[in-house]
């Protein structure tokens, strides 16, 4: 069992960062929230409803309202950037091509990659893939955004840019966000509140300063 009695409430509009060592079950928390993994026991309530008791239609509606940014960006290799962004839009809303185009262009402008519209994922760098992945997630106007290690594998400069982008999007749209990371620069830039995960339990929650000044050796190790 990876998670043991995890209990966490996220307020509307806040960005909470789940901090923990590799293999501690951080990503499992996100996958449980989005319904990719069913917990053995316990309840996960999103928008006030237990997601594991939702009917198919309600569940799809819940997923439309919840965005997920994968560690690798998870862009569809066989599609161009434009097609990647159009893909969920076409399937959920019967938009005309003019409207579709303007939504795609706006989403790409928001992540600063308007020029990449006709590129294939194989032509993009790691940072660009994450930005496009974020644009594809944002295009459905989610109310909640889940980020799985958004800065892993990026150089410090690009990591800072991605963290700034996450903060910017959060401020502009007032979305509720859950960020999984062990990158402290990302934590400092994005977090309203931090929850520290150790051996399947949250051992501390608080804002950046409260967590930083905690005396626990495990927590201190993140800030050294």
């Amino acid at each position, binding site marked *: 069992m990876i998670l043991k009695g995890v209990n966490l409430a996220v307020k509307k509009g806040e960005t909470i960062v789940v901090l923990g060592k590799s293999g501690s079950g951080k990503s499992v928390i996100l996958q449980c929230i989005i319904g*990719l993994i069913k917990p053995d026991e316990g309840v996960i309530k999103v928008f006030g409803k237990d997601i594991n008791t939702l009917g198919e239609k309600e569940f799809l509606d819940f*997923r*439309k309202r919840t965005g997920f940014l994968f560690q690798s960006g*998870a862009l*569809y290799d066989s599609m161009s950037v434009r097609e990647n962004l159009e*893909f969920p839009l076409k399937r959920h809303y019967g938009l005309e091509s003019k409207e579709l185009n303007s939504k795609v262009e706006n989403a790409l402008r928001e992540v600063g990659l308007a020029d990449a519209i006709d590129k294939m994922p194989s032509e993009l760098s790691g940072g660009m893939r994450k930005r496009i992945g974020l644009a*594809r997630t944002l295009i459905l106007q989610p109310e909640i955004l889940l980020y799985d290690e958004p800065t892993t594998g990026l150089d410090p400069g690009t990591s800072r840019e991605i963290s700034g982008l996450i903060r910017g999007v959060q401020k502009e749209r007032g979305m509720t966000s859950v960020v999984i990371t062990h990158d402290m620069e990302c934590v400092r830039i994005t977090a309203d509140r931090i929850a520290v995960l150790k051996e399947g339990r949250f051992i501390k929650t608080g804002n950046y300063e409260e967590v930083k000044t905690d005396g626990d050796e495990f927590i201190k190790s993140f800030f050294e």
Partner: protein
Amino acid sequence: MDNIRGKIIEAGSIIRFSLRFFREAARPPFEIKETIRQFYFLIVKSLPLVSITGLIIGLTLALQLKPTLGSFGADALIPSLLSVSILREIGPVIISLICAGKMGSAIGAELGSMKVTEQIYAMEVSAVRPFSYLVVTRVVAATIGVPLLIVFANSLALYGGYIAMKLMSDTNLRLYFTIALDVLGFDDVLPSFVKTFFFGFTIGIVGSFKGYNCSRGTESVGIAANASVVLASLLIILIDLIMVQISTLL
């Protein structure tokens, strides 16, 4: 013992996967554009390979038959023997095995790499039904396309037979095809055509199953592609055996 148990569980999973295909195929949205795209990639792009194979099957069969039948003075039987053997058995099975190699591995590897790189999860979390988009489209394309490829390859195989006959003796094209097609009956053509739909379905569903259920890690993509070919080939031969028995009984 564990190995046998694992195989039985896998067989059950493939049956469940196939039933899910029929459920999802009957539900909108119908991904017609993607099905056409898959038809192009899986079927149209297999045309050169299938054409060459078909032509060579006919050529070599005729070249092999000529000395044997010629020694009995039964050269005239070659076109009929070719058409019956190609249409009933050799064409459907060999072309299906070739398709299992080309399409099965392509489907297994593509879906497997999509699974490993979280692209299938990305579709799921954006509330798109990946099964419908990825599996139904490929299986439909293979089920419709493989029979067409086999009909095409069989025609070329018969023509290959004619080329061989022409090289060895002065055979007339019209006479060759008259003899070749005259011997064919309804019970030669229909059962062998019906089984090609099963072959196509098998190639699509096995490739999709192996790729869609690929575990994490790049190594598993190779395993999925390889297992797709092996299992689809084995099932094609088994289905062929069953269908021959059924058509004999009927």
